[in-house]
Protein backbone atom coordinates (compact mmCIF):
# COMPACT_ATOMS: atom_id res chain seq x y z
CA UNK A 1 0.00 0.00 0.00
CA UNK A 2 1.36 3.45 -0.90
CA UNK A 3 1.55 6.30 1.57
CA UNK A 4 -1.32 8.08 -0.11
CA UNK A 5 -3.47 4.95 0.12
CA UNK A 6 -2.74 4.71 3.82
CA UNK A 7 -3.71 8.36 4.11
CA UNK A 8 -6.97 7.73 2.28
CA UNK A 9 -7.91 4.97 4.69
CA UNK A 10 -6.84 7.07 7.65
CA UNK A 11 -9.00 9.97 6.48
CA UNK A 12 -11.95 7.70 5.87
CA UNK A 13 -11.63 6.17 9.30
CA UNK A 14 -11.24 9.58 10.90
CA UNK A 15 -14.42 10.74 9.23
CA UNK A 16 -16.23 7.58 10.36
CA UNK A 17 -15.08 8.41 13.86
CA UNK A 18 -16.61 11.86 13.64
CA UNK A 19 -14.00 14.13 12.09
CA UNK A 20 -15.66 16.18 9.36
CA UNK A 21 -12.38 17.83 8.40
CA UNK A 22 -11.07 14.43 7.45
CA UNK A 23 -13.94 14.02 5.02
CA UNK A 24 -13.22 17.47 3.58
CA UNK A 25 -9.63 16.50 2.95
CA UNK A 26 -10.59 13.20 1.39
CA UNK A 27 -13.16 14.91 -0.79
CA UNK A 28 -10.72 17.57 -1.95
CA UNK A 29 -8.21 14.91 -2.84
CA UNK A 30 -10.55 13.21 -5.29
CA UNK A 31 -12.87 16.04 -6.24
CA UNK A 32 -11.46 17.11 -9.55
CA UNK A 33 -9.93 13.82 -10.74
CA UNK A 34 -13.17 11.95 -10.15
CA UNK A 35 -15.23 14.62 -11.83
CA UNK A 36 -12.90 14.70 -14.81
CA UNK A 37 -12.99 10.93 -15.05
CA UNK A 38 -16.75 11.10 -15.43
CA UNK A 39 -16.64 13.99 -17.91
CA UNK A 40 -13.91 12.46 -20.01
CA UNK A 41 -15.73 9.19 -20.01
CA UNK A 42 -18.34 10.86 -22.15
CA UNK A 43 -20.84 12.65 -19.94
CA UNK A 44 -21.81 16.27 -20.24
CA UNK A 45 -21.27 18.72 -17.38
CA UNK A 46 -24.73 18.32 -15.86
CA UNK A 47 -24.77 14.55 -16.15
CA UNK A 48 -21.24 14.29 -14.82
CA UNK A 49 -22.24 16.38 -11.77
CA UNK A 50 -25.20 14.13 -11.16
CA UNK A 51 -23.09 11.00 -11.40
CA UNK A 52 -20.39 12.61 -9.29
CA UNK A 53 -22.91 13.33 -6.55
CA UNK A 54 -24.39 9.83 -6.79
CA UNK A 55 -20.93 8.35 -6.47
CA UNK A 56 -20.15 10.25 -3.29
CA UNK A 57 -23.58 9.43 -1.85
CA UNK A 58 -22.77 5.76 -2.31
CA UNK A 59 -19.43 6.24 -0.62
CA UNK A 60 -21.08 8.04 2.28
CA UNK A 61 -23.86 5.48 2.64
CA UNK A 62 -21.65 2.44 2.35
CA UNK A 63 -18.43 3.62 3.96
CA UNK A 64 -19.00 1.35 6.94
CA UNK A 65 -18.92 -1.61 4.60
CA UNK A 66 -15.61 -0.64 3.10
CA UNK A 67 -12.82 -2.46 4.88
CA UNK A 68 -10.33 -2.77 2.08
CA UNK A 69 -6.96 -1.24 1.57
CA UNK A 70 -7.55 0.71 -1.61
CA UNK A 71 -10.10 3.43 -1.22
CA UNK A 72 -9.22 5.04 -4.54
CA UNK A 73 -9.83 1.85 -6.49
CA UNK A 74 -13.14 1.40 -4.73
CA UNK A 75 -14.18 4.97 -5.45
CA UNK A 76 -13.43 4.67 -9.15
CA UNK A 77 -15.12 1.30 -9.36
CA UNK A 78 -18.28 2.88 -8.02
CA UNK A 79 -17.94 5.80 -10.41
CA UNK A 80 -17.32 3.59 -13.42
CA UNK A 81 -20.24 1.35 -12.62
CA UNK A 82 -22.60 4.29 -12.21
CA UNK A 83 -21.36 5.78 -15.45
CA UNK A 84 -21.73 2.53 -17.35
CA UNK A 85 -25.25 2.01 -16.03
CA UNK A 86 -26.20 5.50 -17.14
CA UNK A 87 -24.66 5.01 -20.56
CA UNK A 88 -26.46 1.71 -21.03
CA UNK A 89 -29.74 3.42 -20.38
CA UNK A 90 -29.25 6.62 -22.34
CA UNK A 91 -26.21 6.38 -24.60
CA UNK A 92 -25.54 2.77 -25.42
CA UNK A 93 -23.69 3.80 -28.54
CA UNK A 94 -20.89 5.12 -26.36
CA UNK A 95 -20.23 1.66 -25.01
CA UNK A 96 -18.59 0.39 -28.15
CA UNK A 97 -16.28 -2.53 -28.71
CA UNK A 98 -12.79 -2.04 -27.51
CA UNK A 99 -9.86 -4.32 -27.69
CA UNK A 100 -9.71 -4.60 -31.38
CA UNK A 101 -8.96 -0.93 -31.46
CA UNK A 102 -11.70 -0.46 -33.94
CA UNK A 103 -14.32 0.86 -31.62
CA UNK A 104 -16.76 3.62 -32.31
CA UNK A 105 -15.07 6.91 -32.54
CA UNK A 106 -16.55 10.32 -32.55
CA UNK A 107 -15.55 12.42 -35.41
CA UNK A 108 -12.70 14.62 -34.53
CA UNK A 109 -11.95 17.61 -36.53
CA UNK A 110 -8.30 18.24 -36.94
CA UNK A 111 -8.69 20.84 -39.54
CA UNK A 112 -8.65 23.84 -37.31
CA UNK A 113 -5.80 23.51 -34.91
CA UNK A 114 -4.54 26.50 -33.11
CA UNK A 115 -2.30 26.73 -30.17
CA UNK A 116 -3.97 26.77 -26.77
CA UNK A 117 -7.70 26.49 -26.69
CA UNK A 118 -8.32 24.34 -29.71
CA UNK A 119 -5.67 21.85 -28.66
CA UNK A 120 -7.26 21.71 -25.26
CA UNK A 121 -10.63 21.08 -26.80
CA UNK A 122 -9.04 18.59 -29.17
CA UNK A 123 -7.60 16.65 -26.24
CA UNK A 124 -11.04 16.39 -24.72
CA UNK A 125 -12.67 15.23 -27.88
CA UNK A 126 -9.79 12.86 -28.71
CA UNK A 127 -10.11 11.12 -25.37
CA UNK A 128 -13.84 10.92 -25.90
CA UNK A 129 -13.15 9.38 -29.28
CA UNK A 130 -11.30 6.41 -27.82
CA UNK A 131 -13.14 3.12 -27.55
CA UNK A 132 -14.65 2.91 -24.10
CA UNK A 133 -12.29 0.27 -22.70
CA UNK A 134 -9.21 2.15 -23.91
CA UNK A 135 -10.67 5.37 -22.63
CA UNK A 136 -11.24 3.80 -19.23
CA UNK A 137 -7.72 2.50 -19.04
CA UNK A 138 -6.26 5.85 -20.05
CA UNK A 139 -8.40 7.75 -17.56
CA UNK A 140 -7.88 5.31 -14.72
CA UNK A 141 -4.16 5.50 -15.25
CA UNK A 142 -3.69 9.20 -15.88
CA UNK A 143 -6.67 10.76 -14.16
CA UNK A 144 -7.23 8.39 -11.25
CA UNK A 145 -3.57 7.41 -10.85
CA UNK A 146 -4.30 3.72 -10.46
CA UNK A 147 -1.63 1.14 -11.15
CA UNK A 148 -1.90 -1.28 -14.06
CA UNK A 149 -2.68 -4.10 -11.66
CA UNK A 150 -5.38 -2.11 -9.92
CA UNK A 151 -6.89 -1.25 -13.29
CA UNK A 152 -6.73 -4.92 -14.28
CA UNK A 153 -8.52 -5.90 -11.07
CA UNK A 154 -11.12 -3.19 -11.51
CA UNK A 155 -11.85 -4.13 -15.11
CA UNK A 156 -11.57 -7.84 -14.38
CA UNK A 157 -9.05 -8.50 -17.10
CA UNK A 158 -5.42 -9.52 -17.20
CA UNK A 159 -2.56 -7.11 -16.76
CA UNK A 160 -1.30 -7.76 -20.26
CA UNK A 161 -4.69 -6.80 -21.66
CA UNK A 162 -4.48 -3.54 -19.77
CA UNK A 163 -1.01 -2.89 -21.12
CA UNK A 164 -2.28 -3.46 -24.63
CA UNK A 165 -5.17 -1.10 -24.11
CA UNK A 166 -2.83 1.54 -22.73
CA UNK A 167 -0.64 1.23 -25.80
CA UNK A 168 -3.60 1.40 -28.20
CA UNK A 169 -4.97 4.43 -26.37
CA UNK A 170 -1.69 6.30 -26.42
CA UNK A 171 -1.09 5.52 -30.06
CA UNK A 172 -4.56 6.67 -30.98
CA UNK A 173 -4.27 9.89 -28.99
CA UNK A 174 -0.87 10.67 -30.48
CA UNK A 175 -2.35 10.17 -33.89
CA UNK A 176 -5.29 12.44 -33.21
CA UNK A 177 -3.22 15.07 -31.47
CA UNK A 178 -0.24 14.95 -33.76
CA UNK A 179 -0.53 18.62 -34.53
CA UNK A 180 -0.63 19.59 -30.89
CA UNK A 181 2.33 17.68 -29.57
Amino acid sequence: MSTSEIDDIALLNAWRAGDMKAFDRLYQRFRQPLFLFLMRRGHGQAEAEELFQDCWMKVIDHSNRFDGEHFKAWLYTVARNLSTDRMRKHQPELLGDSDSGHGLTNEVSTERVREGEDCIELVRSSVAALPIEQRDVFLLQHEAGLSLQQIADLMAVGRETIKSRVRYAMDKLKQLLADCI
Partner: protein
Amino acid sequence: MSDQQDKDLLALYRRSRQEEPSQLTDMRIRQAAQKAMAARSRKDRRWLWGLSTAAVLVLSFSVVLQVWMVQDSPLVIQKDSVSTSEHMPTPNFLPTPEPPPGGASEAGDRRLENLPAMPMSAAPMPEKTVAKEEPMLQEDQAEIAVDREAFRKKAPAHSLQQSAPEPRLPDAVVIPRLPASVEAFQAMAPRLVVEKSASGLIAVYTANKLILSVQHQPDGLVFKAWPGSEVLGIKLNWQLNPMQLSGCIDDSVYQQCQLQQDVYAHFEGVRLDFIQWNQQ
Protein backbone atom coordinates in the same frame (compact mmCIF):
# COMPACT_ATOMS: atom_id res chain seq x y z
CA MET B 1 11.06 9.65 -29.64
CA SER B 2 8.04 7.69 -28.61
CA ASP B 3 8.74 8.31 -24.95
CA GLN B 4 9.02 12.00 -25.57
CA GLN B 5 5.78 12.00 -27.52
CA ASP B 6 4.11 10.20 -24.64
CA LYS B 7 5.38 12.85 -22.26
CA ASP B 8 4.19 15.66 -24.51
CA LEU B 9 0.82 14.03 -24.87
CA LEU B 10 0.40 13.65 -21.14
CA ALA B 11 1.53 17.22 -20.54
CA LEU B 12 -1.09 18.39 -23.00
CA TYR B 13 -3.68 16.23 -21.31
CA ARG B 14 -2.85 17.77 -17.95
CA ARG B 15 -3.34 21.25 -19.38
CA SER B 16 -6.80 20.23 -20.50
CA ARG B 17 -7.89 19.38 -16.98
CA GLN B 18 -9.94 22.42 -16.18
CA GLU B 19 -13.47 21.31 -15.37
CA GLU B 20 -14.68 21.06 -11.79
CA PRO B 21 -17.94 20.22 -10.07
CA SER B 22 -20.08 23.15 -8.98
CA GLN B 23 -20.09 24.59 -5.48
CA LEU B 24 -23.70 23.50 -5.12
CA THR B 25 -22.67 19.90 -5.71
CA ASP B 26 -19.84 20.30 -3.20
CA MET B 27 -22.28 21.64 -0.64
CA ARG B 28 -24.82 18.84 -1.14
CA ILE B 29 -22.17 16.18 -0.76
CA ARG B 30 -20.74 17.77 2.34
CA GLN B 31 -24.17 18.05 3.91
CA ALA B 32 -24.83 14.40 3.22
CA ALA B 33 -21.52 13.46 4.83
CA GLN B 34 -22.34 15.54 7.89
CA LYS B 35 -25.77 13.98 8.20
CA ALA B 36 -24.36 10.48 7.93
CA MET B 37 -21.77 11.24 10.56
CA ALA B 38 -24.39 12.65 12.93
CA ALA B 39 -26.67 9.65 12.41
CA ARG B 40 -23.79 7.32 13.11
CA SER B 41 -22.90 9.00 16.39
CA ARG B 42 -26.55 8.98 17.50
CA LYS B 43 -26.67 5.24 16.86
CA ASP B 44 -23.41 4.78 18.79
CA ARG B 45 -24.73 6.75 21.75
CA ARG B 46 -27.90 4.65 21.88
CA TRP B 47 -25.84 1.54 21.84
CA LEU B 48 -23.58 2.91 24.54
CA TRP B 49 -26.51 3.67 26.81
CA GLY B 50 -27.62 0.07 26.69
CA LEU B 51 -24.09 -1.16 27.22
CA SER B 52 -23.45 1.07 30.20
CA THR B 53 -26.74 0.04 31.79
CA ALA B 54 -25.84 -3.60 31.33
CA ALA B 55 -22.38 -2.96 32.74
CA VAL B 56 -23.83 -1.32 35.85
CA LEU B 57 -26.17 -4.25 36.39
CA VAL B 58 -23.37 -6.78 35.99
CA LEU B 59 -21.14 -4.83 38.34
CA SER B 60 -23.84 -4.56 40.97
CA PHE B 61 -24.56 -8.24 40.76
CA SER B 62 -20.87 -9.06 41.07
CA VAL B 63 -20.51 -6.88 44.15
CA VAL B 64 -23.51 -8.51 45.78
CA LEU B 65 -22.18 -11.93 44.91
CA GLN B 66 -18.74 -11.16 46.28
CA VAL B 67 -20.19 -9.87 49.52
CA TRP B 68 -22.32 -12.98 49.81
CA MET B 69 -19.39 -15.29 49.15
CA VAL B 70 -17.09 -13.54 51.57
CA GLN B 71 -19.56 -14.23 54.32
CA ASP B 72 -18.83 -17.96 53.96
CA SER B 73 -15.45 -19.29 54.94
CA PRO B 74 -13.06 -20.79 52.42
CA LEU B 75 -12.53 -24.52 52.26
CA VAL B 76 -9.50 -26.50 53.23
CA ILE B 77 -8.60 -29.80 51.73
CA GLN B 78 -6.59 -31.84 54.10
CA LYS B 79 -4.30 -34.61 53.19
CA ASP B 80 -2.13 -36.47 55.64
CA SER B 81 1.56 -36.35 55.05
CA VAL B 82 1.92 -40.05 55.74
CA SER B 83 2.75 -42.51 53.02
CA THR B 84 0.12 -42.64 50.40
CA SER B 85 0.29 -46.38 50.20
CA GLU B 86 -2.00 -46.44 53.16
CA HIS B 87 -5.62 -45.79 52.77
CA MET B 88 -6.12 -42.12 52.82
CA PRO B 89 -8.40 -40.74 55.41
CA THR B 90 -11.34 -38.77 54.28
CA PRO B 91 -10.38 -35.23 53.61
CA ASN B 92 -11.87 -32.49 55.64
CA PHE B 93 -13.70 -30.00 53.64
CA LEU B 94 -13.66 -27.50 56.33
CA PRO B 95 -14.33 -23.87 56.11
CA THR B 96 -11.65 -21.74 57.57
CA PRO B 97 -12.45 -21.10 60.92
CA GLU B 98 -13.22 -19.66 63.85
CA PRO B 99 -10.87 -21.92 65.74
CA PRO B 100 -12.62 -24.06 68.36
CA PRO B 101 -11.94 -22.92 71.86
CA GLY B 102 -8.68 -24.37 73.08
CA GLY B 103 -8.37 -26.33 69.85
CA ALA B 104 -5.35 -26.39 67.60
CA SER B 105 -5.36 -26.23 63.91
CA GLU B 106 -4.54 -29.46 62.19
CA ALA B 107 -1.10 -29.97 60.93
CA GLY B 108 -0.27 -30.72 57.36
CA ASP B 109 -3.19 -28.93 55.91
CA ARG B 110 -3.40 -28.55 52.30
CA ARG B 111 -5.09 -25.47 51.09
CA LEU B 112 -6.46 -24.55 47.84
CA GLU B 113 -5.69 -20.94 47.46
CA ASN B 114 -6.06 -18.32 44.92
CA LEU B 115 -2.59 -17.48 43.90
CA PRO B 116 -1.56 -15.54 40.89
CA ALA B 117 -0.93 -17.51 37.80
CA MET B 118 2.57 -18.66 37.24
CA PRO B 119 4.45 -16.16 35.13
CA MET B 120 5.00 -17.63 31.77
CA SER B 121 8.54 -16.41 31.61
CA ALA B 122 9.41 -18.88 34.31
CA ALA B 123 8.28 -21.79 32.25
CA PRO B 124 9.20 -21.26 28.66
CA MET B 125 7.50 -23.29 26.06
CA PRO B 126 9.70 -26.15 25.02
CA GLU B 127 10.42 -26.73 21.41
CA LYS B 128 9.93 -30.44 21.59
CA THR B 129 6.54 -31.79 20.81
CA VAL B 130 5.08 -34.70 22.62
CA ALA B 131 2.99 -36.62 20.23
CA LYS B 132 1.02 -38.77 22.62
CA GLU B 133 0.03 -38.62 26.24
CA GLU B 134 0.69 -41.75 28.24
CA PRO B 135 -1.55 -42.70 31.12
CA MET B 136 0.42 -43.18 34.26
CA LEU B 137 -0.41 -44.36 37.74
CA GLN B 138 1.95 -44.47 40.60
CA GLU B 139 1.86 -47.16 43.22
CA ASP B 140 1.67 -44.67 45.96
CA GLN B 141 -1.39 -42.98 44.56
CA ALA B 142 -4.22 -42.65 46.94
CA GLU B 143 -7.78 -42.03 46.30
CA ILE B 144 -9.46 -39.52 48.45
CA ALA B 145 -12.89 -40.85 49.04
CA VAL B 146 -15.46 -38.33 49.80
CA ASP B 147 -17.86 -39.58 52.30
CA ARG B 148 -20.82 -37.69 53.41
CA GLU B 149 -20.80 -39.09 56.91
CA ALA B 150 -17.12 -38.49 57.38
CA PHE B 151 -17.63 -35.00 56.14
CA ARG B 152 -20.26 -34.39 58.75
CA LYS B 153 -18.16 -35.86 61.55
CA LYS B 154 -15.11 -33.83 60.75
CA ALA B 155 -16.88 -30.63 60.06
CA PRO B 156 -18.97 -29.97 63.09
CA ALA B 157 -18.33 -26.26 62.83
CA HIS B 158 -19.37 -26.05 59.26
CA SER B 159 -20.63 -22.62 58.63
CA LEU B 160 -23.54 -23.78 56.60
CA GLN B 161 -26.65 -23.33 58.50
CA GLN B 162 -28.61 -26.37 59.52
CA SER B 163 -31.55 -25.22 57.62
CA ALA B 164 -29.54 -24.92 54.39
CA PRO B 165 -29.85 -27.75 51.90
CA GLU B 166 -27.19 -30.39 52.10
CA PRO B 167 -24.18 -29.49 50.03
CA ARG B 168 -23.45 -31.79 47.18
CA LEU B 169 -19.94 -33.05 47.65
CA PRO B 170 -17.61 -32.99 44.73
CA ASP B 171 -16.72 -35.96 42.66
CA ALA B 172 -13.75 -38.05 43.65
CA VAL B 173 -10.58 -36.05 43.66
CA VAL B 174 -7.21 -37.68 43.35
CA ILE B 175 -4.11 -35.71 44.12
CA PRO B 176 -1.22 -38.11 44.36
CA ARG B 177 2.00 -37.43 46.05
CA LEU B 178 4.25 -36.18 43.30
CA PRO B 179 8.00 -35.95 42.94
CA ALA B 180 9.91 -32.75 42.75
CA SER B 181 12.70 -33.48 40.35
CA VAL B 182 13.07 -33.44 36.63
CA GLU B 183 14.40 -36.97 36.56
CA ALA B 184 11.54 -38.35 38.57
CA PHE B 185 8.93 -36.78 36.33
CA GLN B 186 10.78 -37.97 33.27
CA ALA B 187 10.77 -41.47 34.69
CA MET B 188 7.04 -41.31 35.26
CA ALA B 189 6.32 -40.89 31.61
CA PRO B 190 9.20 -40.58 29.16
CA ARG B 191 7.13 -38.63 26.66
CA LEU B 192 6.65 -35.80 29.05
CA VAL B 193 8.79 -32.74 28.52
CA VAL B 194 10.18 -31.55 31.81
CA GLU B 195 12.16 -28.39 32.27
CA LYS B 196 13.73 -26.67 35.20
CA SER B 197 14.32 -22.97 35.15
CA ALA B 198 17.12 -21.06 36.80
CA SER B 199 14.81 -20.18 39.66
CA GLY B 200 14.18 -23.85 40.35
CA LEU B 201 10.69 -23.96 38.93
CA ILE B 202 9.92 -27.30 37.35
CA ALA B 203 7.49 -27.27 34.48
CA VAL B 204 5.96 -30.36 32.98
CA TYR B 205 4.54 -30.31 29.50
CA THR B 206 2.66 -32.75 27.42
CA ALA B 207 1.79 -32.15 23.80
CA ASN B 208 3.21 -28.67 24.11
CA LYS B 209 0.82 -27.90 26.91
CA LEU B 210 1.83 -27.00 30.43
CA ILE B 211 0.18 -29.42 32.82
CA LEU B 212 2.11 -29.08 36.06
CA SER B 213 4.52 -26.82 37.81
CA VAL B 214 6.46 -27.39 40.99
CA GLN B 215 8.10 -24.68 42.99
CA HIS B 216 10.11 -25.06 46.15
CA GLN B 217 8.96 -22.70 48.87
CA PRO B 218 10.12 -22.38 52.47
CA ASP B 219 7.00 -24.17 53.70
CA GLY B 220 7.13 -26.94 51.17
CA LEU B 221 6.47 -27.61 47.57
CA VAL B 222 3.82 -25.66 45.72
CA PHE B 223 2.15 -27.57 42.94
CA LYS B 224 -0.04 -26.22 40.26
CA ALA B 225 -1.89 -28.51 37.88
CA TRP B 226 -3.77 -27.73 34.72
CA PRO B 227 -6.12 -29.80 32.62
CA GLY B 228 -4.08 -32.52 31.00
CA SER B 229 -2.38 -33.41 34.26
CA GLU B 230 -4.40 -36.60 34.34
CA VAL B 231 -1.33 -38.30 32.93
CA LEU B 232 0.33 -37.66 36.28
CA GLY B 233 -2.48 -39.31 38.16
CA ILE B 234 -4.27 -36.14 39.14
CA LYS B 235 -7.96 -36.65 38.85
CA LEU B 236 -10.22 -33.73 39.04
CA ASN B 237 -13.44 -32.90 37.36
CA TRP B 238 -12.20 -29.97 35.34
CA GLN B 239 -15.66 -29.55 33.90
CA LEU B 240 -17.00 -28.33 37.20
CA ASN B 241 -15.51 -24.95 36.79
CA PRO B 242 -17.41 -22.51 38.94
CA MET B 243 -16.62 -19.68 36.61
CA GLN B 244 -18.46 -21.52 33.90
CA LEU B 245 -21.46 -21.92 36.11
CA SER B 246 -23.93 -19.15 36.45
CA GLY B 247 -22.62 -18.46 39.91
CA CYS B 248 -21.59 -20.18 43.09
CA ILE B 249 -24.67 -19.20 44.93
CA ASP B 250 -26.48 -22.45 45.23
CA ASP B 251 -25.43 -24.34 48.34
CA SER B 252 -25.70 -27.61 46.53
CA VAL B 253 -22.61 -26.74 44.57
CA TYR B 254 -20.90 -24.94 47.39
CA GLN B 255 -18.15 -27.43 47.82
CA GLN B 256 -17.36 -27.54 44.17
CA CYS B 257 -17.14 -23.83 43.91
CA GLN B 258 -14.65 -23.68 46.68
CA LEU B 259 -12.62 -26.50 45.28
CA GLN B 260 -12.18 -25.10 41.88
CA GLN B 261 -12.23 -21.42 42.22
CA ASP B 262 -9.05 -20.53 40.44
CA VAL B 263 -9.63 -19.70 36.88
CA TYR B 264 -7.23 -17.08 35.83
CA ALA B 265 -4.29 -19.18 34.84
CA HIS B 266 -2.93 -18.72 31.41
CA PHE B 267 -0.64 -20.47 29.05
CA GLU B 268 0.70 -18.77 26.02
CA GLY B 269 -2.14 -16.35 26.32
CA VAL B 270 -4.79 -19.03 26.59
CA ARG B 271 -6.75 -19.12 29.80
CA LEU B 272 -6.83 -22.42 31.61
CA ASP B 273 -8.22 -23.46 34.94
CA PHE B 274 -5.77 -24.79 37.46
CA ILE B 275 -5.59 -25.98 40.98
CA GLN B 276 -2.84 -25.41 43.42
CA TRP B 277 -1.79 -27.14 46.55
CA ASN B 278 1.09 -27.47 48.95
CA GLN B 279 2.94 -30.67 49.54
CA GLN B 280 5.23 -31.20 52.49
